């Protein structure tokens, strides 16, 4: 159990570092998928079975495929990769390290929260999470469907070709549309 935790932790940290360090965006996506799978392993270790399944379906199944599709669509590879200057990179690493030090310093005396004595062992199973979702959190659940609708409409609006006449190259697109 503990060995599994440290194994998954090492895998997730190393793959997260590789996401940032990889030159080719496709390698970054693959590393991020490995990272997400190890996080799903953490969820299983925590007995959060529902979340583990949803995480694999939503993140590795949907979001990362979307990332891969966009990278393939835009034909990104190592040669088109924009590079930052060395000074910015060093500053980014130092800032991240200092941020990590600050966070770790905040918990160096322990987090000060004791585990409760009475414990419900069914937390994290589909039944317990579903009951909570459809009773206590029913309104946010319904509202999130509106969020999805607006995100879908927004993505379609952003993604479709701009057919309005451009201020610089005026006329051509409009005439073609008129003839059609």
């Amino acid at each position, binding site marked *: *159990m503990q060995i599994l*935790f440290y194994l998954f932790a090492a895998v997730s*940290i190393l793959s*997260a570092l590789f*996401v*940032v360090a990889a030159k080719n*965006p496709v390698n970054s*996506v693959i590393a*991020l998928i490995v*990272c997400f799978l190890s996080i799903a392993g*953490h*969820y299983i*270790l*925590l007995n*959060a079975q529902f*979340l583990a399944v949803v995480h694999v379906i*939503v*993140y590795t199944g949907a*979001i990362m495929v979307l*990332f891969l599709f*966009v990278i393939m*669509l*835009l034909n*990104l590879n190592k040669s088109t990769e*924009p590079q*930052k200057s060395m000074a*910015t*990179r060093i*500053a*980014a690493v130092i800032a*991240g*390290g200092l941020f*990590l030090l600050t*966070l*770790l310093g905040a*918990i160096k005396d*322990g*987090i000060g*929260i004791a*585990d409760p004595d*009475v*414990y*419900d*062992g*069914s*937390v*994290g199973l589909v039944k317990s*999470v579903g009951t*909570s979702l459809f009773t206590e*959190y029913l309104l946010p*659940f319904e509202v*999130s469907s509106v*969020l*999805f609708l607006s*995100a*879908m409409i*927004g*993505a379609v609006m*952003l*993604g479709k070709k701009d057919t309005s006449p451009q201020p610089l190259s005026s006329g051509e697109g409009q005439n073609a549309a008129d003839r059609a």
Partner: protein
Amino acid sequence: MNDIVTAIRTVPLEHYVMLSFVLFSIGMAGAMFRRNTIIVLMCLELMFNSVNLLLTAFSAHHGDPGGQVFVFFIMLVAAAEVTVGLAIVVMMKRNVDSVDINQLNRMRG
């Protein structure tokens, strides 16, 4: 059910907190480190996931399903955010023929 509880508690909560701090810092440093907009979005996902892991760990250690419902909502919001973000990236590539995030400073008014 009692053995599940003892099994969960063999790993102290502090270690989960430290792991998620490390992942969050990597994501934050990565968002500053890279210029490719898609990689920056991926670093945002990494930060989302470290927070999700922390919420789940607290929820499992305290026996409260509310934290896991929150993780579910965060996943929903992340999915919506990625859809719109990637649509913006595609539009950016079409208009300025680059995914360099510094190109976006043309938006400043």
